[in-house]
């Protein structure tokens, strides 16, 4: 219904977005309403809300005093509650059951780990949830196996049939197949994992076209070869931009307004300082990268802010390495928990955020990409 823009008063705006000042009208109204505290926040928004969300109630809910800020500009807290001991226990049980079931349980075990890690992650007082199933993972695995198993068997056959000359050719074919699948696996794993992750009942999702990412990946690989690796930071930034800008929560897409070329300077500095600092300058580049990437990542009108520094990353890293060395690697669940805690503690989201109005999107993705990623070693890192 055409009306005047509430911000700049442009006449007859029929779209959600005002053509003159660019403001998203429903969101602006929600923010305005909350700011004034005059009218209930849930009336004039894009999606009909079933009943008054407790976020908008005038007084803070008594059962969670102070856990969630009432005004829109306050940063929303992220927290990770997981414990290394529990994670280790989950893994131990998984290994035992996997041995007993000849490996079949491993898929269900993977689900247990993912579910634990997400269930222990909290944003604005609510925990995330994981919805994948072991059956899905098994089917994905079998599909990928259908392709890779013949490649393996052909090599064995080549040796046993007395034609080992064919072996190098087949290995080349297998290597190429793995390489071809790397970008497909990166996108596929992300699509699957996000579609199985929810917060407050709303699923995340990824809508990037696989083909677009494959093109980006291979073009970048070519440029990296041509520039002797100096294209790497640009590739990484462009890859991140693609992956984040096609990710969504419910129906709303994340935004990214960073410049890929901005990463070149810090990277060059890290490379130049790598020798005198024994490679530790990499940590400062990684910290810069995380700050920059997150600082240019938006959701609606809110913006992420990452406060990681090279020094803090170094502190985390030194303790992690010591833990692993002293326990012969047994401490890795604790390392994983420390990393997640660190990542969450250094991340905040700031600005107006009308979460209650976000509607469910379409959850559609199968686990083939996820299985593929475990074959070609292209992971979807949790908490990174």
């Amino acid at each position, binding site marked *: 219904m055409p009306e005047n823009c509430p911000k700049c008063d442009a006449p007859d705006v029929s779209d959600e977005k005002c053509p003159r000042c660019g403001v998203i009208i429903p969101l602006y109204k929600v923010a305005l309403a909350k700011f004034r505290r005059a009218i209930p926040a*849930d009336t004039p928004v894009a999606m009909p*809300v*079933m*009943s*008054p*969300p*407790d*976020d908008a109630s005038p007084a803070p*809910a008594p*059962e969670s005093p102070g856990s969630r800020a009432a005004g829109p500009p306050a940063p929303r807290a992220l927290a990770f*509650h997981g414990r290394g001991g*529990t994670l280790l226990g989950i893994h*131990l*049980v*998984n*290994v*035992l059951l*996997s*041995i007993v079931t*000849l*490996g079949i349980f*491993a898929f269900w*075990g*993977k689900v247990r780990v993912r*579910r634990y890690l997400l*269930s*222990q992650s909290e944003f604005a007082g609510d*925990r995330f*949830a994981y*919805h994948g199933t072991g059956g899905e993972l098994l089917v994905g695995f079998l599909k*990928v*196996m259908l392709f*890779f198993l013949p*490649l*393996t068997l052909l*090599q064995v056959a080549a*040796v*046993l*049939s*007395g034609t*080992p000359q064919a*072996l190098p050719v*087949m*290995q080349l074919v*297998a*290597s190429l197949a*793995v390489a071809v699948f790397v970008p497909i696996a990166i996108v596929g794993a992300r699509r699957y994992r996000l579609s199985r992750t929810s917060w*407050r*009942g*709303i699923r995340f999702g990824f809508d990037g076209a696989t083909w677009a990412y494959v093109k980006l990946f291979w073009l970048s690989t070519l440029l990296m070869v041509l520039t002797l690796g100096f294209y790497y930071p640009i590739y990484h930034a462009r890859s991140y931009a693609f992956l984040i800008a096609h990710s969504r929560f*419910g129906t709303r897409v994340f935004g990214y307004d960073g410049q890929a070329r901005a990463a070149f300077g810090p990277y060059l500095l890290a490379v130049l300082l790598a020798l005198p600092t024994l490679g530790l300058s990499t940590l400062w580049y990684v910290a810069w990268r995380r700050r920059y990437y997150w600082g240019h990542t938006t959701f609606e009108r809110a913006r992420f802010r990452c406060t990681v520094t090279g020094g803090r990353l170094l502190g985390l890293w030194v303790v992690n390495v010591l833990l692993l060395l002293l326990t012969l690697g047994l401490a890795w669940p604790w390392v994983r928990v420390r990393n997640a805690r660190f990542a969450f503690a250094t991340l905040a989201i700031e600005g107006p955020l009308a979460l*209650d*109005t*976000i*509607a*469910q999107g379409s959850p559609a993705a199968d686990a083939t990409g996820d299985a593929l990623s*475990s*074959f*070609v*070693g292209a992971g979807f890192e949790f908490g990174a």
Partner: protein
Amino acid sequence: VTARGHYLDGRTAARQAVTVQVVGAGIDIVFGDGHTARWPLGEIRQTQGRYAGEPVRLERAGGPEALLVDDPAFAVALADAGGHARRFHDPRRRRRRMLLTVLAAAGVLAAAVALHAWGIPALSGLAARWVPPAWEDRLGSAIVEHLAPPGRRCPGATGQAALDRITERLVRAAGPVPYRFRVVAVDVDVVNALAAPGGHVIVFRGLLERSASPEALAGVLAHEIQHVLYRHATRAILQHASTAIALTAVAGDASGAIGVALDGASVLGAMAYSRAHEAEADRAGMTLLLSAGVDPAGMIGFFDARDGAPPALVRYLSTHPPSAERVRALRALLPPEPRTFVPVLDEEAWAAVKGMCGPRRAYDRRAVSPESR
């Protein structure tokens, strides 16, 4: 039990404060506006709340709705309502579950040790018996092709003939064998020899040049021939592959399986024998030497030379049992009364063997050296 919780309708990210109550065969959810929804227990799945500090999350079958209750008393009431079917997680059982986890840890450790120490070796030993010699031969050819490409083989024809003579004499003493034995000398300066499946034996330049006598070399060859006859290499390969597959299965990470596929020849070449296999080959090699009428003093001397030996020799011995123990075991096999032995090679043939790799040149040790695998 009445508890406060939150209801998610799965359509928007808004959450609604509700009161929840366990009533006999279901739970009642009372909304702020007063209306009540009943979820039958049979339609409820618990997806969170297994671990301490985690609120209970219930999802209704076939829909996106979820209910969050952060109240241990509710969890207990729900578990009781679920009854013996253990539909819902009971927080009172956490202690017991932790104990079970510790037991599982002990179980994992025991299973891993048993599998590594007995399970996999026993299974690969069994499986190796069923591998046809023709397959072993082709597998061995592939390994030799990889470790000793024709360009790196020692060219001396007289030396090769002498090597073949020693081999033939030893193999004849072993009786009828299912393999055709071939010895290949490789121009790599390490004191080493190895047996690939199917009768392929590789000796390296360093071994030829630094063996004190033809008898010492014959001792090493007898040892390698017994590795082949006992199918140690085939077993080692099966063991390696099945360990990789087992680890992959347990870890649920398929990249290991692909690694095996990609490694191809290098995996085929990964043959580290166990101490037990080495001792077996030592013993049987000694028997073979004696029945071929070769003086075993050379073989014993070769292993005895460990003290003060050049580094390369130490390296050869380091993959084998401690040499003092080894020499003791070999001496125990010596016949009580002195015997007469037939020399293995004459001076001229031995010189041909020692020089069969041609004059020394700058080696590229990285290319085929077995240590670099």
